[in-house]
């Protein structure tokens, strides 16, 4: 059995990790610690250095400098026995069914989860006899999650587990991830989906250009950066009066007014005779935060 994590000290810790590819600095000194039972998200656009960081932590990619500690120690032989890894892109052996794949990977570990439990956890029951090449994107991702969980790991690395999936498949994968969280696993998750990070992660680190630019719980991050509300109006900018005493930005669906004082803003709009049918009030999101921090949209 896997040793239990001491109550103190993080399960995983990155200290000043760096990775250079020749002149290119892909990761420029990243440090963070993941406490036991936490779902820690690395959030950032493509090319930010998320995969490089996560692969250095997994031990798959050597770091140019810096240190990785697992349960307070440098990683050793037990590390691969005790962690589960799902890469962003993984090929499996051809001509094997889902059941064959599960059996193959279960037999690589000393103390695997029972097959039934794994199948139930990742909702693979109807797919067991299917050729693993003939799975849809979401089904395949659930199989890859199951393979990452065969050894009942205490720490799971998931590199963009829902990239490229349709919304329904993404929700199915989230359901599996929530079940993994409910089992008390520590998860390191990379994603460029704000909604995913917000829904699943207890703590996130926003990465851009190989550096962490903000870190904290999603709500704390939003609260510390924003105390405003967004008023979204489904009207073109030309429909607003020229003397409206509010700043607004044009969006694809209309205009948005960002204000700390919703009451005054709505009154001003009403006073100016702006039609308020279809108005939506929303809090600032991680998407807004990313835009604010980097000046860039979060590229999918």
């Amino acid at each position, binding site marked *: 059995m896997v040793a239990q994590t001491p109550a103190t000290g993080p399960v995983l810790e990155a200290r000043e990790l760096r990775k250079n590819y020749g002149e290119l600095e892909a990761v420029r000194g990243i440090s963070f610690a993941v406490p036991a039972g936490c779902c820690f998200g690395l959030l950032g656009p493509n090319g930010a250095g998320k995969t490089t960081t996560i692969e250095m932590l*997994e031990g*798959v*990619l050597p770091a140019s400098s810096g240190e990785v500690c697992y349960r307070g120690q440098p990683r050793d032989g037990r590390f*691969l026995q005790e962690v589960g890894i799902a*890469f962003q*892109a993984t*090929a499996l052996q051809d001509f094997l069914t889902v059941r064959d794949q599960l059996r193959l*990977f279960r037999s*690589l*570990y000393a103390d695997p989860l029972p097959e039934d439990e794994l199948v139930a956890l990742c909702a693979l029951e109807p797919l067991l006899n299917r050729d693993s090449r003939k799975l849809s994107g979401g089904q395949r991702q659930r199989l890859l999650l199951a393979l990452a969980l065969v050894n009942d790991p205490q720490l799971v690395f998931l590199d963009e587990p829902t990239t490229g999936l349709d919304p329904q498949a993404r929700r199915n994968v989230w359901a599996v991830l929530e079940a993994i969280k409910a089992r008390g696993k520590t998860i390191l998750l990379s994603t460029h989906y704000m909604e995913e990070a917000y829904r699943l992660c207890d703590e996130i680190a926003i990465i851009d250009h190989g550096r962490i630019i903000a870190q904290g719980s999603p709500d704390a991050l939003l609260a510390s950066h924003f105390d405003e509300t967004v008023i979204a109006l489904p009207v073109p900018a030309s429909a607003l009066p020229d003397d409206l005493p509010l700043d607004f930005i044009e969006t694809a669906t209309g205009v948005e007014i960002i204000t700390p004082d919703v009451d005054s803003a709505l009154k001003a709009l009403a006073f100016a005779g702006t039609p308020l049918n279809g108005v939506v009030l929303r809090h600032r999101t991680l998407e807004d935060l990313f835009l604010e921090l980097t000046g860039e949209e979060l590229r999918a």
Partner: protein
Amino acid sequence: MMGRVYALLHARNLEFLRDRSTLGWNVLLPLLLVAGLAAVFGNGVRPLFKVAVVGDVPTVQAQTLLEFTDYVAVDDAERLRRQVARHQIDALLLADSREYFYNPASPKGAVIHRMLQAVPSWQGRIEEGAGLRYIDWLLPGILGMNIMFSCLFGVGYVIVRYRKNGYLKRLSATPVRPLDFVLAQVLSRLLLILLITVAVFIGTDFVFEFPVRGSYADLLLLTVLGCAAMVSIGLLVAARVASEEVAGGLLNFLAWPMMLLSGVWFSLEGAPQWIQHLALALPLTHLLSGARAIMFDGAGLADVALELGALAGLTVLCIGLAAWLFRWRTD
């Protein structure tokens, strides 16, 4: 419609011409084949007869003056007499005693005998025996060639594909060690190709009834070593390469000389010395010469010790190098 055909034709041509390894191979392969066959068969008129000579070849040639005949110097008269009996060589000439051995049952042997009867002071001796059919001689060649391709590509190419598509990377994230992986690949291919080879041998034997004078166990041991040597070469090629094109080129580069020079289709006796020496560096040569010696001459393990040793040595060398060079991924 022609516009569409032309556009597709043009795109396909560009793809072909820009894939340099494919293009290179398409040019290189026929060149290698022509060069290889020219080296083996020379560029003169292909002789009709082949006689073996123990002793000074030019002297014997000057005395006998056989037309359209290839004189091949040999030193093992016993072995060559067996070949005469089996119609593999048309006559054996002994310079010292001025004797020649021929098989009257062989059409070419009978013609050579007619010609030599006209030469003064040479005595003919009959060496009787049923001829070895070409299919008998060819069978080890075909099975050996199949072993070679299956092991080289089935191991070499497949591992490179696994590395390229990321499957090796996935395995590297499990407790699997490179040695576990390599051993599984070797044993899997060894087992499968042995089963296939034995099945094909048994199946064709029902039809052709191949002569096997030696022991089947010896033949099996030699085949196992032959497969192991081929698999280990495949592993060595695949130890680091991450491009299927490069792996394919390398494997073809190794396979084709064996196809031509290891005696799959024809015996290399009479080929230039340097070609025969080169052939000794190829594992298929040893597999085939050992298998033919066991099958046709009834050779025992001691008789094919050189072949067994060469195959075992190559296996150890290549597996050692492959394990040392092996990488899960290339970056």
